[in-house]
């Protein structure tokens, strides 16, 4: 027989695609050694990112965010509720992340994705700890009525870096949010005003349609650590092969909001973490610019 490397011989007789499926790690390592990724990106570069505001007209605020082919649709619906006893002059925000069957072949009806509740929790934690929203702004009548903001994020196409895309769409939807004008009717109930955004007659409790003041906006970047390489914004294929992920969340003024490293085979040196943070800082500037452009595009319309 005398065959030194069976797989080497095998690779010569099959297509690149097949080699990629059979020996994914070897395939990637050959690329990484050349400092390039199979999709042509340098290691530290994120995929093309777009944001479209106002994608769902029936919602009070919405945004569609795409990072590469990962696609997220976020929408905010506002409802009036009675505030809790502990915080009578605060509204509430409920965040939910969904992965419907269309987003990935792994998800089927009745077999939900494991990632969904994890991302959901991460999003709630990030948005509440970033102090982005002042919940007092959601109050209507102290102790009587306040806004309940339902923020739902749907993953339409899952191709890696789900948290980054979900956070981006969530932030953009909140950015786009217009709080509806409401007035107090005779029975003491809050009703949504019929006049859409127009000037309202001056009744004491009336509120005009307004935007939220967002104090600091959180942005994130997920990186893969593999040996000494750091790969920014991984695809789902990359996430499946190399399992150690680090997610850094920074706000617009580069303050660290959170840092996740949920285990994984690679133990990160502090220098690697610092490299991730540096990449994120760069990415935050990019994302801020993309969000601003999406917003100015809206105003032109």
């Amino acid at each position, binding site marked *: 027989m005398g065959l030194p490397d069976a797989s080497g011989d095998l690779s010569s007789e099959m297509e690149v695609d097949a080699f990629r499926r059979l020996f994914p790690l070897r395939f990637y390592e050959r690329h990484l050694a050349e400092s390039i990724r199979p999709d042509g990106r340098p290691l530290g570069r994120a995929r093309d990112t777009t944001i479209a505001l106002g994608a*769902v*007209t*029936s*919602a009070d605020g*919405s945004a569609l965010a795409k990072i590469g082919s990962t696609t997220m*649709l976020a*929408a*905010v*619906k506002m*409802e009036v509720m009675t505030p809790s006893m502990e915080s009578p002059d605060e509204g509430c925000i409920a965040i*939910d992340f*969904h992965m*419907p*069957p*269309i987003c990935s072949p792994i998800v*089927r*009806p009745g077999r939900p994705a494991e990632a969904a509740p994890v991302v959901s929790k991460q999003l709630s934690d990030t948005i509440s700890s970033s102090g982005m929203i002042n919940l007092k702004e959601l109050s209507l009548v102290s102790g009587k009525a306040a806004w309940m903001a*339902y923020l*739902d994020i*749907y993953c*339409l196409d899952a191709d890696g870096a789900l948290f980054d895309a979900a956070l981006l769409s969530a932030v953009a939807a909140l950015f786009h949010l217009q709080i509806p004008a409401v007035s107090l009717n005779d029975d003491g109930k809050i009703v949504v005003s019929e006049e859409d955004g127009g000037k309202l007659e001056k009744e004491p409790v009336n509120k005009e349609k307004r935007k939220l003041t967002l104090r600091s906006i959180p942005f994130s970047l997920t990186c893969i650590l593999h040996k000494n390489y750091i790969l920014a914004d991984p695809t789902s294929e990359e996430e499946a092969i190399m399992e150690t992920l680090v997610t850094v969340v920074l706000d617009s003024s580069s303050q660290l909001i959170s840092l996740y490293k949920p285990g994984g085979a690679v133990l990160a040196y502090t220098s690697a973490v610092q490299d991730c943070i540096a990449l994120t800082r760069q990415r935050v500037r990019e994302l801020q610019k993309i969000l601003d452009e999406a917003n100015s595009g809206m105003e032109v319309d």
Partner: protein
Amino acid sequence: MMYSDIGRLNCNVSYTTFATPVRAQGSDRKEFSSMLHKALEGAIILETFPKTTVDVFALVLESGGSDLPVVISCASLALADAGILMYDLVTSVSLSCLGKNLVIDPILEEESYQDGSLMITCMPSRYEVTQLTITGEWSTPKINEGMQLCLDACSKLANIMRSCLKEATTSSQE
């Protein structure tokens, strides 16, 4: 699941929580999944793929009336794009009967006050009806009129769908 000589079709329709005017109202649309299944099964050549299941998942992002016809037409477009062998495209159109008037492609408000409804799913090129649902009281001439309106709309919709598919095909080749 048993081995099957012909392919299987599996359909699922769901709504986003923000699709309906009242939040999370449209979640129980089990019957839509079965209606979608019935609308599509006659059009797919299931004999050509043994032991295979075709999953069709539909997610309604925003509901503004005539949801099911749109879901059906959209799903057939997706099947054609996926290269699943089909006898024909499947197009679906509904109309509402409001008093004496027939309104085609009704919006949500029209649907909620309708006196009757008629929905046709057809294979436009073969001129065959795969699904027909009528509610409310109808006289035969009115059914005739309604069916004709819907069938005309179906063939117009099919032309739009065909040009969309052709455009995608030629642009993907370049």
